[in-house]
């Protein structure tokens, strides 16, 4: 039907000239940012950002730097996968960072060893009877905690009608409280070897990539995905078409909580400790990744590949700043500006699309 001349008003339609997907724009931005750091590096540092410049190592690229970039974004990236789905429905989730902390504290308590260097572990949260448990237990506990927190978010939003911003803000404060209360502020440490394996090495990247692919397929090819987009696109229409909007929202927020639970597992395992203050501001970083990746805060538009690219941009910028030896203060200032810039860009795209229609 490519060449057919039809349609209302007898307009012609040229199928070969389709608009580029928005993800393409994000990918181009990623490349441009890398190029900027490469050029700045050559000029200011006399070093390459991307390429290997050391004599003693083979290879074209600076593999170590690339690994660090994806490693440092992958844990927040896992959260961003859930936040993406929430934003697609037109909602927001401010609670993920706190859920990570509370979940990590609780799960880690089920993953402690009984003996440290031959001495009894006196810091075990549940005493000596609840140590050296099979790793499946803390994993299940983590997933259950994350889901429970997400479920509460979802029920509040879907059935009381309060804005997602408020509901998840409440959860953000409460979950942080739970994290502190759990051990009266003490960190939980000394996990079993099998627990420590969950987040060791490049495992966080592996988990992130697998989950990204999984949720991309789910959003693209299942009824769940279609309804997620439909609700964000036009909630009233979704309701009139018979979609159970409230029930669907509960599911979306529960999945977001579940993913925060996964992030808690990976993070506490990687750090070999859980602290009440961990995951601070992760929710904002995750939202930033989604927004940079082209997920519209108004809902209905964006995709998981976009968020993954957004996470990469996020990682490249942080890594680039470190490479240029800029202070962490500047990093935060620029991070804030990028988030606002991405939202402005989205609004602008939206207006342009509206003007074209």
């Amino acid at each position, binding site marked *: *039907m490519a060449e057919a001349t*039809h*349609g*209302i008003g007898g*307009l012609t*339609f040229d*199928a070969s000239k389709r608009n580029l997907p928005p993800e393409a724009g994000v990918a181009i931005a990623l490349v441009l940012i890398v190029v900027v750091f490469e050029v700045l590096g050559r000029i200011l540092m006399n070093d390459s950002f991307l390429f290997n410049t050391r004599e003693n190592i083979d290879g074209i690229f600076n593999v170590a730097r690339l690994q660090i970039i994806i490693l440092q974004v992958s844990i927040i990236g896992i959260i961003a996968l859930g936040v993406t789905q929430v934003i697609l429905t037109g909602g927001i989730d401010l609670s993920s960072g706190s859920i990570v902390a509370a979940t990590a504290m609780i799960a880690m308590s089920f993953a402690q060893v009984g003996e440290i260097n031959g001495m009894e572990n006196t810091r075990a949260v549940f005493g000596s009877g609840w140590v050296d448990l099979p790793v499946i237990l803390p994993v299940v506990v983590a997933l259950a905690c994350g889901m429970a927190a997400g479920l509460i978010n979802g029920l509040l939003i879907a059935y009381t009608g309060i804005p997602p911003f408020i509901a998840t803000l409440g959860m953000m404060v409460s979950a942080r409280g739970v994290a502190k209360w759990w051990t009266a502020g003490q960190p939980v440490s000394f996990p079993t070897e099998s627990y420590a394996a969950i987040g060791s090495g490049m495992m966080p990247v592996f988990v992130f990539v697998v989950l990204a692919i999984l949720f991309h397929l*789910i959003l693209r*090819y*299942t*009824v*769940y*995905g*279609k*309804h997620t*987009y*439909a609700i*964000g*696109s*036009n909630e*009233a*229409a*979704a*309701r*009139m*078409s*018979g*979609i*159970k909007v409230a029930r*669907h929202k509960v*599911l979306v927020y529960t999945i977001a909580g579940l993913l925060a639970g996964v992030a808690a597992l990976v993070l506490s395992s990687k750090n070999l400790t859980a602290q009440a203050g961990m995951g601070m501001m992760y929710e904002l970083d995750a939202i930033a990744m989604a927004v940079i990746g082209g997920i519209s805060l108004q809902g*209905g*538009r964006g995709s998981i590949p976009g968020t993954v690219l957004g996470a990469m941009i996020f990682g490249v910028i942080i890594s680039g700043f470190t490479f240029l030896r800029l202070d962490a203060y500047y990093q935060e200032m620029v991070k804030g500006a990028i988030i606002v810039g991405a939202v402005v860009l989205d609004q602008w795209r939206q207006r342009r*699309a509206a003007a*074209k*229609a």
Partner: protein
Amino acid sequence: MASDMQTDISGANAPHPSGDIGDVVLRTEGLTKHYGGVHALQDASFEIRKGEHVAIMGDNGAGKSTFVRQITAVEQRTGGKVWFDGRYVEFDGPLEAREAGIETVFQNLALADHLDVPDNLFLGREKVLFKLGPFSILDYKGMREATLAGLEKTGVKIPNIRNTIQHMSGGQRQCVAIARTATFHSKLTIMDEPTAALGVQETAQVENIIRTLKEQGEPLILISHNMRQVMDLCDRIVVFRRGRVCANLRKEETDGQDVVSYITGAKTQDQYADAA
């Protein structure tokens, strides 16, 4: 909850409609909807029989769309009774109404901007390759083919069904909404101002779709401000005024002038006089 309310009309607990239910497809008695202090719909009694095409007319704000939203359970009614397809119903939501066989073109069209034509046609009842609860796998190919068939059947032309609704003209969007009702087999079709945004050709097309429904004996409730269209297509005209039914006119016993005087309130039928 709703399913156990849907007692058979002859069941002991079901409220009995006054009079013979016979070949009535939909009947309402005393249907009422208040939005806070706004009495958008008051005591609306209405019925439509098999094969009948009934027009609802009335001024802006007369309560026509409100009436539709109560029947289709988009909103929960304040009061009144509804029978559909031989049983008393209290639908729990729009999905139940659709599944029971009521297809509706809503005045605001109820389309999702960022989705394409097949997605919109099948919104809320997607074709799936295999069932997995909410994670059932979508049958994109099947939906595309059914969409093309549906568009073909209705003569509606859309340049490219893979385009999102967002970029379509008002008329094209309306065509998508109409094609949606025509694609599914239904026991009752409701169209709320289906030709309001359409050009001459497209209006004729929609009117043809309506005539086809008539030939197939499928009942229709048509809400329209277009007198010629109503006189052309419908057997009966029910007039709403200020949230109440004020006239029920057989086409052969009335004319445009007469209908207008009911719409403006210059006349009221005797049986509705005390209510008004």
